[in-house]
């Protein structure tokens, strides 16, 4: 019994370290002065902290612009994916209709094709449509990527709100739309917000499509990867960039973890 518990704890420790250690190291490095970063052997605990590394990154060419681009793309992605996935999620949660199961499967099937395979045809198509190197183009791809997630979250959110509440509102004189707006929507709002934030993280972190489909209008991850791979950016730029990318995602996932858990059928109350 104790042996078993020991096994579980050590496995947890290993997995936790596997996730947390890189985060810790990158955070330390992002606040370490530049000259200490290049010292050899490098000390694990720098003993001297500075914001210079981060400021250097923030002032590098194109970073602010790319950050703005990333936020802009994420906003359009959230808007577009909700426009499509929210009504679909509501319909899947509330109605039984012909082809319902097929639709649910088809939504997940979009995850079957790796982006690598799709990238060349996608780039060609976008060039033809004049969407290449536009933020809207990137947002459309991000929308396609996030629709399955948003749909699954929205379905679970609406399923958790009893339809009887809407019916009760209708017997009390509401129309169907009023019942939705006054009863279901206010109750769904936290869950929907979680889905929106999740979409933001997805778009913020997405690097592959953003790199393939843009040249001048880079989003932040595309800019960083390009600086690192093509231009061989210095170490402190890499650490600061990595930290800058990871923090919003980390904070947000921490805030909405409850909803992400319910997504997989685990109810945390």
């Amino acid at each position, binding site marked *: 019994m104790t042996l078993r518990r020991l096994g579980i704890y050590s496995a947890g420790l290993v997995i936790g370290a596997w996730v947390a250690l890189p985060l810790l190291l990158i955070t330390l490095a992002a606040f370490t002065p530049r000259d200490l970063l290049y010292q050899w052997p490098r000390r694990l605990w720098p003993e001297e902290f500075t914001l210079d590394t981060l400021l250097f990154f923030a002032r590098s060419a194109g970073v602010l612009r790319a950050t703005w681009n990333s936020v802009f793309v994420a906003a359009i992605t959230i808007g577009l994916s909700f426009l499509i996935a929210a009504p679909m999620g509501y319909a899947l949660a509330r109605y039984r209709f012909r082809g319902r199961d097929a639709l649910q499967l088809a939504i997940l099937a979009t995850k079957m094709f790796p982006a690598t395979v799709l990238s060349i045809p996608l780039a060609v198509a976008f060039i033809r449509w004049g969407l290449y190197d536009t933020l809207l183009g990137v947002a459309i791809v991000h929308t396609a990527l996030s629709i399955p997630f948003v749909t699954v979250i929205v379905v679970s959110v609406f399923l958790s709100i009893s339809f*009887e509440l809407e*019916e*009760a509102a*209708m017997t*009390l*004189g509401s*129309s169907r739309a009023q019942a939705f707006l006054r009863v279901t929507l206010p109750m769904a709002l936290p869950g929907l917000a979680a889905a929106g934030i999740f979409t933001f993280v997805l778009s913020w972190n997405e690097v592959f499509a953003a790199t393939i489909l843009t040249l001048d209008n880079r989003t932040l991850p595309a800019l960083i990867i390009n600086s690192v791979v093509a231009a061989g950016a210095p170490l402190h730029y890499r650490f600061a960039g990595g930290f800058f990318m990871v923090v919003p995602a980390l904070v947000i996932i921490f805030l909405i973890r409850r909803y992400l858990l319910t997504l997989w059928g685990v109810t945390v109350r």
Partner: protein
Amino acid sequence: MAEIDLQGLRKTYGRVIAIRELSLQIRDGEFLVLLGPSGCGKTTTLRAIAGLEMLDRGRIVIGGRDVTALPPGKRGIAMVFQSYAVFPHMRVYDNVVFGLRMRGVPEPEQRRRAAETADLLEIAGLLDRYPAQLSGGQRQRVAVARAIVMRPDVLLMDEPLSNLDALLRLHMRAELKRLHREVGSTTVYVTHDQVEALSLGDRIAVMKDGEIVQCGTATAVYDTPANRFVGSFIGSPPMNFLSGSVRAAGGRLVLATAGSTVELPDPLRASLSGRTEGEIVVGIRPEHIEVALSPAADAITAETIVLEPVGAHQLMTVRAGRETLKVTVPTDLLVQPEQRVWLRMNPGRIRLMDARTGQAIGAAS
């Protein structure tokens, strides 16, 4: 004034028939109970009256107005759901006045009516709370208040007591009866609990397989069930059914069952309307069988199997020939298991039924 007229309702879900064919008139101010086992179509019928289910066929007329095509909010109904369906994100007060707001009732009038209704249901102290802060019984009161504050012509209730514990259910049952007297709305009440039905309903419509098998007062459905199903569904323990036969003997009509013969009294004789021969099912309630410890004329010889004291009386299970019967006996009757006893049925309380169809023979109530 709101009498309800259900005309030839039918509702199917694919191949499943929820309501086969249902017509019923409910009088203004009446308390009508739809009673039946689960899946008999009682809730579907209630939801059809509410406008939450679209019918395949049939018309619903409330207070002389054909509401078949109207949405729930325009039918003059209010409904109490089994799950209460109290809005969790609104305070009790906002729950109660929700319908009034939707109707555009002026604010002072809303406040007045909410206060009045809260008094009636004794929830005046809870108006500022959220539903999550209430007990099940309190939530149920809020659900009822939200319905009756509308002063509906028709009040619909879908098993409102089924989620309460036994003691609270008993209390709320009496409360609902008082409320109905004070509010006076025509009420349709769905339940699968026959005790609830008998105690609340002016009339009880017993349903089975999407049809009403019998509709009548509590006394009528209890004393004169229309068929075997009603006899066995209503009453706890249910009616006993013995197979027997009728034959003519010297100008009299004699019923033979479980190795004994009983002379049929005149009313039963008349109900047979000329039938003098044949197989028959004898229905008799447990309390209409008298137990004697010594042989008696016309008595059925039986052997006790189990004796269960249930408080006010004892429930005795006996075997007579191949039949098993339940009999209620006084608590002071001293009987041992496997003791021989003699049973005498009260002839006036016998309900004869057709052996093949299970339908009661003679005057339906």
